């Protein structure tokens, strides 16, 4: 009892083969699109790798790149096969390969689906990576004289300007770290010494932010120092002022940016997966109908095409039994030459039967 049996006339088979040929070539194009999307994501992640802690998030773009390349190859082969399927003599060439090809493609489409789901699940790992990375970057903002960290100031400044954000969660993160290097602090001044003494670790903390936090849209020249002190600036109220600095935190801004990219890519991959699945179904129908035609002998006759020859349960049982017959008997360590006494109840006679005397016939 076949699963989803469909009758195919000769013309329908030919049409199916032609349509599948075109669809396979379209799939090659979508494979290339997947590849380039993976490449794009890889480049975007690499651009900001200074701001991300050491988390393994590169596996998502790597997977997309691999999936894209394999999709191209598989669909290229599929296109070649479908092109030859129009002619039933050429089909003989591919007959033995087609079933393994279909099975491989089926598992490959599962990989595509996994890839799509990974795009959406990357969100949480990315958030953690950004949180840690930004915290580190802000801590080393002042270390412009240390090799390996000297560009972090530039990176953080350009990030805050470009993404219109300030600090990790908000601008108050800058109050908790020393972002002015000791090289530029006059240690002989009382104010500086007071600040250094005011906290346990001896850090120069202030309620000020770097210039890159300044909001362009503010009607007022930017207030960067003494932000929490209302009396330090004329006509200024710290609690109600929301246009002076960027209010969004950089972690959230970056996360939104990457999530947007990931969602678009995930959607594209899902659509590609559906497309691949439909192409696979078509190829399966084509394969079964052509095999039936060969079995019937007459190349112009009608034939049946199906997804599975028997129902799902039967197929599962067949696969299981296939697996069992391939199983090696572990009692004699797999060596068939050792004589193992029969354990069955049936008695087949003594083992050592002497050969019949040939002298009787001579």
């Amino acid at each position, binding site marked *: 009892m076949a699963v989803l049996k469909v009758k195919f006339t000769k013309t329908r088979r030919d049409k199916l083969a032609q349509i599948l040929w075109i669809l396979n070539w379209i799939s090659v194009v979508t494979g290339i699109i997947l590849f380039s999307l993976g490449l794009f994501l890889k480049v975007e992640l690499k651009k900001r790798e200074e701001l991300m802690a050491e988390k393994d998030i590169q596996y998502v773009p790597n997977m997309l790149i691999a999936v894209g390349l394999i999709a191209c190859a598989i669909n290229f082969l599929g296109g070649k096969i479908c092109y030859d399927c129009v002619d039933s003599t050429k089909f003989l060439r591919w007959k033995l390969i087609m079933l393994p090809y279909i099975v491989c493609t089926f598992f490959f489409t599962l990989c595509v689906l996994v890839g799509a789901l990974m795009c959406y699940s990357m969100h949480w790992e990315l958030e953690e990576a950004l949180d840690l990375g930004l915290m580190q970057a802000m801590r080393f903002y*002042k270390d*412009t*004289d240390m090799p390996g960290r*000297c560009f972090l*100031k*530039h990176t953080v*400044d*350009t990030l805050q*300007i470009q993404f219109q954000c300030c600090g990790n969660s908000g601008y108050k993160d800058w109050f908790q770290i020393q*972002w*002015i*290097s000791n*090289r*530029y*602090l*006059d240690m002989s001044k009382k104010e500086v010494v007071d600040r250094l003494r005011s906290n346990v670790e001896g850090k120069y903390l202030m309620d000020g932010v*770097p*210039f*890159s936090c*300044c909001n*362009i*849209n503010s*009607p*007022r*020249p*930017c207030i*960067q120092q003494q932000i929490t002190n209302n009396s330090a*600036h*004329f*006509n*200024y109220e710290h609690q109600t002022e929301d246009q002076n600095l960027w209010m969004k935190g950089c972690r959230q801004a970056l996360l939104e940016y990457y999530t947007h990219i990931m969602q678009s890519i995930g959607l594209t991959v899902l659509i590609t997966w559906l497309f691949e699945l439909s192409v696979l179904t078509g190829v399966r129908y084509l394969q079964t109908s052509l095999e039936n035609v060969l079995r019937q002998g007459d190349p112009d006759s009608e034939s049946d095409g199906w997804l599975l020859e028997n129902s799902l349960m039967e197929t599962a049982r067949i696969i299981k039994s296939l697996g069992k017959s391939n199983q090696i008997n572990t009692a004699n360590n797999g060596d068939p030459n050792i004589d193992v006494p029969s354990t069955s109840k049936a008695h087949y006679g003594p083992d050592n039967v002497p050969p019949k005397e040939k002298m009787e016939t001579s």
Partner: protein
Amino acid sequence: MALLKMKFSQQRRVRLAQGLWLLSWLAVMCGAFIFCLGVYLKIELLRRDEVMENTEIHVVPNLLMMVGLASIGANWVASRVCQDSLDASRFPRWRVLLLGWYAVAVLLCCLLLAVVVLSYALQGRLEESLKVGLRNGIRFYKDTDVPGRCFQKETIDRLQMEFRCCGNNNFKDWFEVQWVSNRYLDFTSQEVKDRIRSNVDGRYLLDGVPFSCCNPASPRPCLQNQLTDSRAHYNYEYQSEELNLYSRGCRQALTDYYMGLMNSTGPGVLSVILIQLSVLLSMRYLQTAVEGAMALESPEGESEGYILEKDVKATYADVKAKALDLLKFAQVDPASEAAGPEEGEKADEATEKAATPPPAS
């Protein structure tokens, strides 16, 4: 004696028509390219409209767009002519049009050349326009509450950050302008009162710059205030400090940017001129060769193609005579009106005399 005469067999004519058809489609693409170039340049100029005082420089992208569109039309016509050129029944209707087409093609080449020349010549005007525009922008930086000027602050800030520049010529331009609005000045404070009294116009001038002048590449957190006072900041020397703020002026930055844009389009425009000229010359050869072939008894035979029927001097004399004729025809001569009928009679007599053969002696 024709100019640059060439012989064309039937096969060569066919080849010429095919080649010209391809070339004219290439020229259509080039026309589209020129149009897109014009659009791009116009958009870039419009984006910074607020810091430009006049729109004289816009003549360059406007010309490019016009020429692009005209070139698309003209070269499409050329491709149609090519398609019909080998068909003797359809070609004659294009003959009249072709003279006008040549004029249009020459005009397009001249306009493109003019664009290249203008893009260099207008640099001075662009700088002037930017100078005035930026000066106004900096003056009205503080007027975020005045309708019509409220976006100047955002425009100037964005400009300075994007183009990595500060002020008009350099950052000192900010010292001569009050860029902090009176709304944010505490007039009870002694410092503010001193500053306002220190100059004739009563403006609050300070040796500080807005935050958008800050250079992110500086190793030190940005110093914006008391820039000329080396003692106000620790380990700071005003004269030798060059990484703290952007050292370039915005006028220079914008001029460089636009000149760079226009210069990079120069080679493209020149190659389009060359393509258009080659279409023009090939079309002339095709026209004369096909017309020559149509005049022959056997249309499949060889014909001659040339650029001008006679050489340059003779053609010029011809054109001059034709033009004078046209002018004479337009002129009304009062003397010739009265003499006209008499002359007509005399002419009739002369023809009669000529018609009757003299009696044979």
